[in-house]
Structure formats: C-alpha cells, structure tokens
C-alpha cells in the first residue's frame, strides 16, 4: 500500500511517501494509524495524537473505521488550513 504524508506529519516522519506491506489484521484507517506507530520512533511521535491525524482514502476524507485495501492510495495529514 502506498501511503502519503503531508505538512508536519511529513516532516516529522521524514518522508513524503512510503510503500508498506500490510499485515492481514490491519483492516481500517484507524488500524493503519496504530500499526504505522510501530514502524519507528519517528512514526510513533508523529502519530501520537490521533485527534490531529486525518486520513484520506483514494483522495476522500474518511473516518477511522473506514475499511482499507492494499490497492488504496492512503494519505495521512493534519487538519487542513487552506483558504
């Protein structure tokens, strides 16, 4: 699965994108955030406060209980601040 990071999540994790092989038990967006925390201390720190970690699946905002599949484009980012 391809994962994209934006804004301070990108700078804290240190890469704009990464490709991961998901274990079978990772079924939802929320599961993914939890699982990503275990990848490195940088991930753990960046993703510590899930209130400010938003998820998009295939370029649509989704809640944490949204299902994910290996072919999805998943993005993690802080609350948006445009306009």
């Amino acid at each position: 699965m391809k994962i994209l990071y934006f804004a301070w999540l990108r700078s804290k994790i240190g890469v704009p994108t990464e490709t991961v092989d998901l274990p079978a038990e990772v079924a939802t967006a929320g599961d993914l955030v939890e699982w990503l925390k275990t990848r490195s201390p940088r991930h753990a720190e960046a993703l510590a406060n899930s209130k400010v970690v938003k998820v998009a699946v295939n370029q649509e905002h989704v809640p944490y209980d949204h299902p994910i599949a290996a072919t999805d484009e998943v993005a993690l980012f802080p609350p948006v601040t445009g306009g």
Partner: protein
Amino acid sequence: MAIRVQAEDFDVGAEYAAFTAGRTSVGGVAMFVGLVRDIAGGEAVSAMTLEHYPGMTERQLEAIEEEARRRWPLDDVLVIHRHGRLEPGDRIVMVATASAHRDAAFESCRFLMDWLKTKAPFWKLEATPDGERWVEAKDSDDAAAARWAE
C-alpha cells in the same frame, strides 16, 4: 465550472471580466479574495508556504462546488487557490459566484469559503522571527463550516 489550483498569481479584474463576459442572465456576482497577513497570533509573518495534495485538492474543490450548485441556483462558480511560497499582501484564494439574485451569490460564496477551509487539503507553513511553524486549524473554522449542515 472552474476550479484552478496554481502557483501563479491571478488578476482579480481580469478574472471578474472573464467570469461575467457574455452573461446577461446574471443579476449579481459575489467575490471573496483571501490575502496573506503580515501578523498571525501576535507574531510577524514574513512569508507563507502553502502545501497541498495534488489530485485530492482538485477533487475536493470540485465536490464543494457541486454541493454549492445543488444548494443554490448558480449560473457559475470560480475557485482559484494558490500554492507555494507567498508573501504578506499576496493573494491566496479567490471565490466568485454568479446568480440571478444576490442572496444566492452571497450565501454560496461564503459557503464555498467555509467548506474549502475545512475540506480542501492545503496546509500553511508560516515563516516568523522564531522560525517556521505550521498553522494550526481553528475551531472557529470548524464552527463556520458546521453552520451549513443541512
């Protein structure tokens, strides 16, 4: 329908002229232009860099425009949002709505800005005397978007 996400500046007068050219059924146009301020949270801001999520940005803006057209009788909608490095006084965003009547133009223009601020994937990085800092989302922006709930 026009959604544009671009690094370049835009000319508000030229955009208005193009937006209204040849339209004789339009009774009113509402426009909003957002600018970079030189102060935020009490601190001087010397520059701002707007990051976005190419692809999702356009998709979200299109969805927001579609929602505005569903709610109000609009002749046309224009949304221009810039990305990249901007300085105080620079234009960031422009929204224009055209309708036969002013209420639809005013209300939909405000709706587009309120929804854009909470749904379009843009993030602002400010340069201040203390270094760079990411702008935090405001609860007031969420409240502004929430009042349009149906």
